């Protein structure tokens, strides 16, 4: 159980491919690695909990929607997350439970500025019993 990821060698931006045993874990992997790109996840304490609903028509749009929601919470509310748990409710809806805290400049070293998770080469698919996903972030 779990997820794996690897970077795609994109010239200007940051691309990542994921592989997971389940769709839930694929989304979880996307969310947690996003948080790791922004800040070392080990330094984030799970002192606050938030729940999100992502409603989008396709698996890809839900993936992109989740990542951009995390980006919004970071940019607008200055929240970072150590844990991202995902329930796939149906084909149109995810429920996401987040644990994290507000940025504390004394403890959190921000590593990368991300402008958005793009639709370019965005893909979520099932292959040989595994779920795979790919996303490119504009940085």
């Amino acid at each position: 159980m779990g997820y794996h990821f690897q970077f795609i060698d994109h010239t200007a931006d940051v691309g990542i491919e994921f592989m997971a045993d389940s769709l839930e874990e694929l989304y979880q992997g996307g969310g947690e690695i996003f948080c790791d790109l922004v800040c070392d996840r080990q330094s984030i304490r799970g002192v606050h909990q938030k729940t999100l609903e992502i409603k989008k028509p396709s698996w890809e749009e839900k993936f992109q929607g989740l990542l951009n929601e995390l980006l919004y919470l970071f940019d607008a509310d200055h929240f970072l997350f150590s844990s991202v748990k995902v329930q796939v409710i149906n084909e149109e809806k995810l429920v996401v439970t987040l644990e994290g805290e507000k940025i504390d400049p004394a403890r959190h070293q921000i590593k990368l500025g991300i402008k958005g998770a793009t639709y370019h080469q965005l893909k979520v698919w099932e292959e040989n019993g595994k779920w795979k996903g790919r996303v490119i972030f504009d940085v």
Partner: protein
Amino acid sequence: MFDVERIDDCRIRIPKQGKMRVEGIVYVDEILYKGIKDDMCLQQVANVATLPGILKASLAMPDIHWGYGFPIGGVAAFDLDNGIVSPGGVGYDINCGVRLLKSHLSLDQVKPELKNLVNHLYQKIPSGVGSSGLHPPLSESDYKKLFVQGAEWAVGCGFGQKEDLKHLEAEGALPGADPDGVSARAKKRGADQLGTLGSGNHFLEIDFVSQIFDEEKAAFLGLFPNQICVTIHCGSRGVGHQTCDDHLGIMLQASKKYGIDLPDPQLCCAPIGSEEGRRYLSAMAAVANFAFANRQVIAHQVRKVFGHLLKMNDKDLGMEVVYDVCHNIAKFENHRVSESPRTCLPGLRPGFFRGDSPSPEGVEGEAPSGFAGGEGDASPYNREEKKVLVHRKGATRAFPPGHPETPEAYQKSGQPVLIPGDMGRYSYVLVGTGQAFDEVFGSSCHGAGRVMSRNKALKSIQGRPIIKELEEQGIIIKADSFRTIGEEIPEAYKDVAHVVEVVEKGGLARIVAQLKPLGVVKG
């Protein structure tokens, strides 16, 4: 894969094939072509060529590289009646751009204070991820004015002078902005970010004029050898990123609604005149105006820091705006759109713009008088001109001498075109030409273009003391994180000297001056 053929030393053609409605033209010589031929950017040029209403060609500038949706360096113009607008042709960082300040200061005056200046600029101008700005959080009423007035609003708040506005593209405010078209989420994201550089490749640089290539044009721009200048590269921050994301969602649905076949979902779009198209354009204009105000606020802070440390007043500093250009934008402009062979302006010999024929002194690139003239004017610039929507994604507007949108001070030189290189080598100032106006909707490149991914760059510098290496070259650098410096090492970029050489050979702009960095603040 698709066919590619070489047109001349500086251009390749992707002939119309598959669903392409027009051909693709990419301004690269053989060296630049070798660097891009195996990545996705040429496919992206071909993808853009499939969009409805595209005019003349899907174009790419010499700094072309793999982007998302459009290639970086991509230029495409669309017919207002049957063409589209695509947020992917503008990008997340709406009106990311460059501002150049000149000064009365010389290299010798600034060198002794350089470290101090860089440290103070780093402290006084917020940079990096999550930084808060130089203006208190923006209220709804601030936003309403700022989104319409752009840089002028910032001047009204005490950031800079009215004279600055004359030297900003669109005078620092795009028309047609609708403050109510920007979502509450976008406003929240940008509320405390006015006057911040941001992160990634954004920067603030103290430069000196290291070489003048064209003394006459340099004089029009007020540039002289060893002069201190400051370059500011940043955009619309979170408000722009969120606005792009908001509208991509709308455009995905719109593409289905209007039956637009998309080779890449990031190219999602809507007809220019549709409700979705108009909503995006008015929100984009509002956010572009935030970016103009952002650079205005930062420029003001730069002047304050220089004045304070060098104990000089504004008049003695002479830190005036040379120009401020957008390089991620969609704009309504008048252009000639009929298929025309490469022709010369009156008085110029064929082949002049290709650089294979010497130029008659003082004539190059100048438009005949009466550029935008009235009815019956015989100027080649207004013949067959029509209003189109030009997308520039990582490309700079480069308008010629005599164009009504070229500022009065540059009517004889052409609009300044600001091309940053990398933090270790040099940047360039060019001016627009008539040929660029004719062939590429008055556009040029926007930078050097990356050759190395961020991960590769980081891996390549393991153990290397980059900050010390730059210091040994006389360049002081400050950044929020070492990672940013590692990602932005000079080797991660093409040599911008070669890129601008192709720009000039291709007739897209004329090189005026080279700037070398002395102090760099990275986001």
